[in-house]
């Protein structure tokens, strides 16, 4: 199992055991529900915005360690960021895991870089990206753009 240390790094296991911002926000400005039905991963994302800045972001749900820790780390990384900076970070994160050309890697990942190991486990990439896609949908909805009610990465 030592070969799994790249995937399940200590910081990931810690975020899984003690997820940050694991709570509901009453009357959020943005909300979306993420669901990977094949896995059984379910995540609700709540956003509070003030003057274009993400004042608070939180999540609730049930998922594997990769899904939960990614959501937890996402919330800590996004707090205090502008909507544009949040989008840029989403793109970078997505690119790091999938090398998807639509999502250029513009900004450094910082602490989120520990999740790069997921790239070597293609079936688990959807676990790590569920929270981010759900956040993206919540943000789009509050910006008045069309977004799905239920997000999935499967």
């Amino acid at each position, binding site marked *: *199992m030592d*070969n*799994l240390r790249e*995937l*399940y790094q200590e910081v990931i*296991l810690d975020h*899984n*055991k003690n997820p940050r911002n694991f709570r509901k926000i009453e009357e959020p400005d943005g909300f979306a529900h993420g669901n990977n*039905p*094949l*896995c*059984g*991963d*379910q995540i609700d994302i709540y956003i509070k915005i003030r003057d274009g800045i993400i004042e608070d972001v939180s999540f609730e749900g*049930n*998922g*594997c*360690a*990769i*899904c*939960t820790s990614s959501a937890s780390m996402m919330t800590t990384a996004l707090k205090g960021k502008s909507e544009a900076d949040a989008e840029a970070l989403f793109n970078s994160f997505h690119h790091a895991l999938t090398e998807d050309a639509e999502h250029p890697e513009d900004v450094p990942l910082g602490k989120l870089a520990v999740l790069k190991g997921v790239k070597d*486990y293609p079936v*688990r990439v959807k*676990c790590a990206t569920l929270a981010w896609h759900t956040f993206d949908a919540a943000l789009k909805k509050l910006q008045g753009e069309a977004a799905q009610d239920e997000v999935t990465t499967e």
Partner: protein
Amino acid sequence: MSNTAQYDVVSIRNDFPILEREIFGKPLVYLDNGASTQRPVQVIDAVKDLYQTHYSNVHRGVHTLSQESSRLYDDARVKVRGFINAACVHEVVFTKGTTESINLVAQCYARPMLKPDDEILITHMEHHSNIVPWQMVCEQTGAELKVVPISDKGELELERFHELLSEKTKLVSVGHVSNALGTVNPVKTMIDAAHAVGVPVLVDGAQAIPHMPVDVQKLDADFYAFSGHKLYGPTGIGVLYGKEKFLKEMPPYQGGGDMILSVSFEGTTYNQLPYKFEAGTPNIAGVIGLGAAVDYVQKIGLGAIAAHEHGLLVYASSKLREIKGLRIIGEADQKAGLISFVLDNVHPHDIGTMLDAEGVAVRAGHHCAQPVMERYNVPATARASFAMYNTYEEIDVLAEAIKKTIGMFS
């Protein structure tokens, strides 16, 4: 450690080339047999031999190859008849698998006769493939789907079954063995009760056929469905057994070649059973491979296989129960060789990845039985499912790998 002295698991394992594989430098421990089993060299060779030596289309040409392929193909149907003890060969219809077999009955038996307020009776522990075809046919006809509940142990609530069985019921469809819980359902009791009120029964045998002797006449099942790939045979091939009296009256499933006797623009005469339900060039290699798989399991003997797997189940259950923080989902008195479980602090998908690193292949997920997951309030489970080639030593490897997983996540 095997208590069945005559059962030679080593020589059985030697027949399965894939079991020699290593995963991350560790011997493969294949415990995902509920999803699909592996193939013995006898099945692989039968398919290879067909393509290398005999292959052509069946029931068409007069040339030698077509005749040889047709003979091998027809022989396989005879083997399947004997295997499940159908009364006659033409009661064995080849399909893509259990799913298609059930859909065929839903569309060709149920749909033409269902009326609004009629009822189809299934159970809470069915695989999606024994739920959705009935939902579709209910939508098409206005009939209603009724569901027999299950107990905390994972057994059918038989009293509720008897209550739900009424003059409105037009068909009962029940899994012989639950793929998510391992429960062996009392299908003979259910069939007798249904027949007493004139209701036919379809048995979804996907998870039963590789693990226990099945005699469709003794069961008195009206339809019995199963897949080749769970029986050490090829993928994309399955069987629908149906009593002649039903199959004869049912309209064809699909139109095309082989299912007709004559075609003109004024009208078409359908072929006899079973060809009426087998339009188009069939899965020739799949059928012949399935025939070889049937030969193989019959040579080992399903009674012996069942005894061996039961030994593994008892051993694994006691080993896993010793692990703190592990909960077995499905504790029916009558179980086939599979264990669904959850761990207190580790999600099933993490269990799956962690065990894989130890060479152990298990299934993680909802097992296409989401209503079962909801019933036990879990998002998913990890499932170890056994086959004729598994060993007690492999159970030890599984138990150790689970303990390591718990250690890493604690």
